[in-house]
Every structure is written in structure tokens, then in C-alpha cells.
């Protein structure tokens, strides 16, 4: 862990801002592994981790001291034993933005597919919709901003990129990410326990279908 700041987040939470995006999952894992009866939730995102507490059970100063202690003793990496089983997703590279992504990146379509499907991804956090995982590990050459104006309807299973992340739309929704392909995998299923296929820390491998 290279460094962090604790930022105020109202009366029942603190936001941990990490120096590096690579520290987010180790920090989240350390806080979850250590555990505290007053901590209600630990929620990772792109650079920050929110720690929410029952304010009647723990004072803010004690929470801050506890977080600092957890992070000081945290391992920078994720122990192999703590790593969940990888999720394998078969992807059809038939997305509406595949050609324009290739053009804007100065690569052939085949090279975009090769780079996108051979990277090692990890779910860094979930958000946007139930089961939507932000996968870190995207090839730096494929990093492009999202659409200026989102599409009103992106089909469920669309595999897309935006900025430093790739992800899969769990259900049809509006969306501004660039569409590279699609998968038949069911990302969020209420009849499954847990319902979300992708959870923070899950390794993900993509294969061209």
C-alpha cells in the first residue's frame, strides 16, 4: 500500500482515497478480512473505498484509527488463497463500435480483439446496475472515453469498454460505453446465490466465441 487519505463522508462513513488504483482491491480485502462489528459495508470503486458504520457503535476517530491500522498491515497483493475462481466468458466480437475503436486506436480489428481477449481482468468494483462489474486490466492502447451522448438502449450481454475499464451490461439499459461484442453469460440472476456472477476481486478471462 503506497499511501492513502481518509476523507469525511458524513456522520456514518469515511472514504479511503488510495494513491494507486492497484491498491483499491488490497485495501478492500484488508478491511473485509479484518472485519469490525460496527462496520456495515465496505464498498470499493475506482480509486476509493467507502467504509460505512453504525455511528452509535463506533466513534469516527476510532473508525479512522481502525482503517489506518488495517491498511498499514495490509498486504499489497492478494494472496492466492483469497482469490476467487476465475470466471470465463465467451465473447462474440460483433459490437457496433468495434470498427471505430480499431480506427481510433490505430489497430486492426483483429488486433483489438486479440488485445481485449488476452488481457487478465479483475473485477475492481460493481456499480451502475446490479451485477455490472468494472473490470480492471484493460490494455492501455484500448483506453478511449465513453460516448459523449449515451445510447438509449444497450442490449443485455453487451461487452464494452470505457476509460481504463471493460465490462458487461447485465441487462438492457441506456449506456455510454463503446460496444466491442456480446456474451450469453447471465451476469445477474436472482435465482442464483450469490446473484452476481462478478464480485469485487473475481478474476475474469474472455475468449473469442
Amino acid at each position, binding site marked *: 500500500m503506497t499511501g492513502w487519505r481518509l476523507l469525511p463522508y*458524513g456522520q456514518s462513513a469515511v*472514504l479511503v482515497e488510495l494513491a494507486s488504483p492497484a491498491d483499491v482491491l488490497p485495501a478492500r480485502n484488508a478491511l473485509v478480512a479484518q472485519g469490525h462489528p460496527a462496520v456495515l459495508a465496505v464498498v470499493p470503486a475506482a480509486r476509493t473505498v467507502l467504509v460505512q458504520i453504525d455511528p452509535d457503535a463506533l466513534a469516527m476517530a476510532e473508525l479512522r484509527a481502525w482503517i489506518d491500522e488495517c491498511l498499514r498491515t495490509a498486504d499489497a497483493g492478494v494472496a492466492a488463497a483469497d482469490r476467487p475462481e476465475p470466471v470465463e466468458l465467451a465473447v462474440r466480437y460483433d459490437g457496433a463500435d468495434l470498427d471505430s475503436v480499431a480506427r481510433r486506436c490505430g489497430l486492426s480489428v483483429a488486433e483489438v480483439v486479440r488485445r481485449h481477449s488476452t488481457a487478465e481482468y479483475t473485477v475492481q468494483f460493481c456499480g451502475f446496475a446490479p451485477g455490472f462489474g468494472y473490470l480492471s486490466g484493460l490494455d492501455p492502447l484500448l483506453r478511449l472515453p465513453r460516448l459523449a451522448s449515451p445510447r438509449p438502449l444497450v442490449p443485455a450481454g453487451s461487452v464494452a469498454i470505457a476509460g481504463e475499464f471493460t465490462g458487461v451490461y447485465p441487462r438492457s439499459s441506456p449506456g455510454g460505453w463503446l460496444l466491442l461484442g456480446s456474451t450469453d453469460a447471465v451476469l445477474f440472476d436472482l435465482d442464483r446465490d450469490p446473484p452476481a456472477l462478478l464480485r469485487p476481486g473475481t478474476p475474469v478471462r474472455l475468449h473469442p466465441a
Partner: protein
Amino acid sequence: MAAMIEVLASGPLATVQDLGRPGLAELGVSRSGAADRAALRLANRLVGNDESAAGIEITLGGLAIRLTTAATVACTGARCPLSGHPGGWNAALSCPAGTVLVLGPPAVGLRSYLAVRGGLAVPAVLGSRATDTLSGLGPAVLGPGQRLPLGSATAGPPGTAGDLGHPGTELPAGIARLRLATGPRAEWFEPGPLPEAAWQVRPDSDRIGTRLAGPALRLRPGFEQCAAELPSEPTLPGAVQVPPDGQPIVLGPDAPVTGGYPVVGVLPEADLDVLAQLRPGAVLRFVSAPTGPRSAASGRPR
């Protein structure tokens, strides 16, 4: 005939709500649940339910229901003219089978709650019967012809607001004052307008966010780029986000669990109940609430 509530009319928006799905943000699932939690809790206690039982959240009145069986019902929150029973607001009402209850529009406030002894027994999704209007989790938004089964789980006998020592949610007359604790990006903005201005609730407010209109909050010099490049951060209901137009949005129970706009402040839990009662056009002011000692930096220097 099975014990049911039949929805005859729903008004602008009526949904099934309980205390929601806390603790699932890591899976991308919002808390959802009643916007005015104190009012739902009171309604449930009046009919002798556990506080977390599912009831109906009604927006600006307009709900009409028919009971297929004798039932004990309580209405709380924004006070609506009630027809179909001589009893009043914040009280347990014994209703014979076939009773039709009609709630008119409230004169003050925005959201009303109707609890039935035994609770609404619609299927639970991820441990809650709440309708999440953004993600679609939980039962459908209520409409005419829908039937809601009644449950049988109770926690005690029906009570009165007097027994419970609870007068019901205080609805603000005139300008509401909401406490605001410091948020993670408060220092990015020019101080001034947020605590000083009167803010008006915009008509495009909903369970996802209460949108406010007032003087634009401006970024301090040097922080424009930080705000433009801010990657998604975790959020909580009550977080005050500032989009590029400078008009703040207070996140509601159905807001996404991460967001890309800087958060300047966070309302304490109890003030969310007051916010939930502010209808479009209502005016509010923020007063500062302590967050405890602030440390600008901790951990190792960076």
C-alpha cells in the same frame, strides 16, 4: 378468498417499500426502501408489525385500495384526506372486509405510508420487498387492478401514536432546515452558496435524487480538472452530488451505488426523512452538522 389488497388507483407513484437492501452495494445493489423511514416504521408499529414490514409508499396521494378481508390499517407521513373510514392519520384503523380506502392529495408534504397488520406478502428479492425504481428489483410499481397478498407476521398488538410516544413525522412548515455534514470533495468548491442560499426542490426530483435549484456551486481554481476527471466513487443515500451545471442533487434511496460527480456534503440519516417530504417547489436551507474531527491526511504521506 385469500387476504388481499386490491389497488383501484395509484396516484402519481405508489410502490411497495420496506427498509430496503442495505449492505449489498458491493454487488451494485442500491439500498432502496422507504424514502421516509420514520413514517414507515411508525405505520408498522401502529398496526403491530415489525418495523421492517412492507407497506405502500404513496406520492402526493391518489391511492385507492379495497380490502378483501377485515384488516387493521394505519396511514402516516404526509397527511391526506381519507375517505372510507372515520378514523384519522397516525392511528390504527379497524376496517371490515370490503372497505375501500381513498387517499386524496396531501396539503403539506409529499410521501404517505400505508401499513396493514401482517404486512404485504409480495415475494422478497434479495431479502427485501422494496421496489427499486432504478434497477427494477422488487415488485412492479403499483397500478390499478394489482393485488397484493397480506402476510400474517406480527410483532405485537396494534397501538396508538400516544402509546408509542411518537407524534408522527414533523413536516416542515415554510423553509425546511436540513443538517449537512462534510463530504469528501467539499474542499473543491468555493465556500458560500451551499450553506447560505435557499434551495428549491426541482420538479424532476424522484426516488433516485432530489434535484435542487439555486446559485450554481463553483469549483475553486485548480479543481476543475479534478472534477472533470473524477472516476466513479461509492455513494450513499443523502450524499449531495454536484454535476457540472453546479446544481446539487441529493441522492435518494434508489440512487446507483457509485457515481462520477463530486460529493460536497452528506445528510445525516434522520434528515433524509424530512427531505423525503419536500415536494417540488419546496424551499430548504442547509445547516452544518459535525462530522467529528477532520484529518486532512493520514496514513503515510503521499
